[in-house]
């Protein structure tokens, strides 16, 4: 049974008010955009709580809300590893160890840091791949949103695309990064306040946490797993056969926890840009830590609904979730189903608006990261250097228009040729997997050279590609999902394959960078690297903040709570 959401006048009113505020923020910020630094870095003037929530929110796009709820249904509480093993430790590491170099070096973007630390070609490689990636991600967000609206409320696909793209365009064009950041914070509250009643009603309906645990037992046993698989996060990770993710603890900790999460949270300019806009070094370092607080609790908001939905679906013999094309329940419909099921007119408008907001913020985050990298790292570096600052501000505005038009093109491609998008995402995966090795060596080993970094990255990317060609998940036909050279290594699941691919790419990049750096001469002296490498940078002064506000202390507290959560749901 397909889900159909009936919106009433009051729901439209809430939606309209939200968009008036979103656009209003853009208009109100227009007069503060005087130079390129205002537009791309918010003039480095934003308080930490705002950058912190925006840091979180930039990642809280469709992928998070819809995807994590889907994983909650599909894998149960093991999905929390994406938070309590993946995101949180990486965010703490970024705050304590990496932010001093990003913020302190006065680099305006992550690729620019690579240029300062290594050389032009390393920056070019990162900047170009990142620019292409963000613009396609933005297009994918847009496509997913329009497709969802088409299914749920029967709006026209192309009208949705143009209207949503236009709204995002207007507020970024006017207010630049500040506008995107402010709207991300607005959207953060929309999602938290719009979805919390959903979790409450769902939990109440299912009969509370212990009843939920009870009802998840048949979900696990009917698929051949041990009774507690859906409610225990670590107990079934000894062997990939024991859990629905098909991953063991080593792949989880090293692949997701270390390589992929640190790679994403510590090097992806989309999130790091939010911290770079903070008003001081201490605000920049507090940004990821402030984000870590709510991030720790997000599983309640996004994973728990998935678990509730699958329990109710199982109990009602499949009446809660619509069936997907493969005969399994359509896990991506968890949140929409619950909205339609529990929310009366009024609250439905709030929840529905929150859902739309999450897609649009995902898109806006990508667009702002794109226009910065395009303008500073590509346009100013290779196409038109030494122009006036107002010229770059102008360029940033038009890069926004251009970026959004390309996103629409990407959405068009995604709607017509799904395979091309799968292929692109695959290639992005190859490029991203080794990145963290380059940054780690760059920041903590002064001997790492430009050649080492560039060829290490290239080698890591090729290693990822080769590994993908040589491996695939059991039961998958060799092709886009791997094994296109020869399916030599077999994995229990695509997720397991992906985690091991990341480990191989990271290790290759790490070793190659070390080897090539030793064989090549240094091109940057110790003086050049001051502020860019750990051993050559004076420790950041603790700007007269009390001890309980210091990043190291807050970071340790955050990590201890995370360990506690892991043990609690072991």
């Amino acid at each position, binding site marked *: 049974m397909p889900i159909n959401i009936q919106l009433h006048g*009051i729901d439209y009113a809430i939606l309209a008010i939200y968009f008036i505020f979103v656009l209003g923020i853009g208009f109100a910020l227009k007069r503060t955009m005087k130079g390129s630094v205002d537009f791309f870095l918010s003039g480095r003037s934003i308080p930490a709580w705002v950058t912190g929530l925006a840091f979180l929110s930039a990642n809280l796009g469709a992928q998070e809300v819809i995807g994590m709820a889907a994983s909650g249904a599909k894998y149960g509480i093991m999905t929390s590893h994406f938070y309590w093993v993946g995101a949180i430790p990486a965010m703490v590491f970024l705050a304590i160890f990496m932010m001093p170099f990003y913020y302190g070096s006065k680099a305006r973007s992550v690729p620019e840091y690579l240029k300062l630390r290594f050389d032009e070609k390393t920056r070019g490689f990162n900047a170009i791949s990142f620019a292409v990636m963000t613009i396609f991600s933005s297009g994918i967000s847009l496509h997913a949103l329009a497709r969802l609206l088409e299914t749920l409320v029967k709006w026209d696909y192309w009208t949705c695309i143009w209207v949503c793209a236009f709204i995002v365009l207007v507020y970024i064009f006017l207010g630049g990064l500040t506008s995107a950041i402010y709207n991300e914070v607005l959207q953060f509250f929309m999602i938290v*306040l719009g979805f919390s009643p959903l979790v409450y009603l769902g939990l109440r309906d299912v009969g509370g946490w212990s009843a939920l645990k009870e009802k998840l037992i048949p979900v696990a046993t009917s698929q051949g797993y041990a009774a507690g698989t859906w409610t225990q996060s670590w107990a079934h990770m000894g062997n990939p056969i024991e859990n629905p993710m098909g991953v063991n603890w080593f792949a989880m900790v090293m692949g997701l926890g270390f390589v992929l999460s640190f790679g994403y949270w510590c090097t992806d300019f989309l999130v790091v840009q939010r911290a770079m806009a903070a008003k001081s070094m201490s605000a920049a370092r507090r940004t990821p830590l402030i984000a870590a607080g709510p991030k720790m609790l997000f599983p309640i908001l996004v994973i728990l609904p998935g678990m509730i939905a699958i329990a109710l679906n199982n109990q009602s013999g499949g009446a809660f979730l619509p069936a997907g094309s493969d005969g399994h329940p359509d896990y991506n419909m968890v949140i929409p189903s619950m909205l339609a099921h529990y929310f*009366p*007119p*009024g609250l439905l408008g709030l929840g529905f608006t929150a859902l739309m907001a999450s897609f649009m913020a995902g898109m806006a985050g990508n667009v702002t990261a794109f226009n910065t990298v395009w303008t500073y790292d590509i346009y100013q570096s290779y196409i038109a250097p030494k122009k006036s600052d107002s010229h770059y501000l102008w360029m940033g505005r038009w890069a926004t228009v251009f970026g959004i038009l390309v996103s629409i093109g990407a959405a068009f491609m995604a709607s017509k040729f799904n395979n091309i998008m799968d292929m692109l995402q695959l290639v992005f995966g190859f490029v991203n997997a080794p990145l963290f090795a380059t940054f780690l060596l760059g920041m903590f080993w002064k001997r790492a050279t430009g050649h080492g970094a560039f060829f290490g990255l290239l080698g890591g990317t090729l290693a990822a590609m080769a590994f993908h060609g040589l491996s695939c998940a059991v039961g998958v036909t060799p092709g886009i999902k791997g094994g296109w050279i020869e399916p030599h290594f077999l994995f229990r699941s695509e997720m397991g394959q992906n985690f091991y691919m990341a480990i191989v790419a990271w290790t290759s990049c790490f070793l190659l960078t070390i080897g090539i750096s030793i064989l090549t001469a240094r091109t940057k002296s110790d003086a050049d690297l001051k502020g860019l490498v750990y051993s050559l940078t004076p420790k950041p002064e603790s700007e007269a903040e009390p001890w309980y506000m210091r990043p190291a202390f807050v970071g340790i507290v955050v990590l201890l709570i995370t360990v506690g959560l892991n043990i609690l749901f072991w």
Partner: protein
Amino acid sequence: MNFDLRLPIGLMFSLFGAILTIYGLISGPEIYQRSLGINVNLWWGGGLLVFGLLMLFFALRKGGDN
């Protein structure tokens, strides 16, 4: 100087809160069957209103020291 973000957040959620509370008061019980018989518009609207007013209070009290 950028404006204090708590201002629009406070305004918007106060507005949402007010709308939902009023709607909760005037709407009949039949639409709350799906929300397990709870008048969620009234309750949650009230919550949003309190949240929005608190944000406004803090935004206006300190007058942009942020």
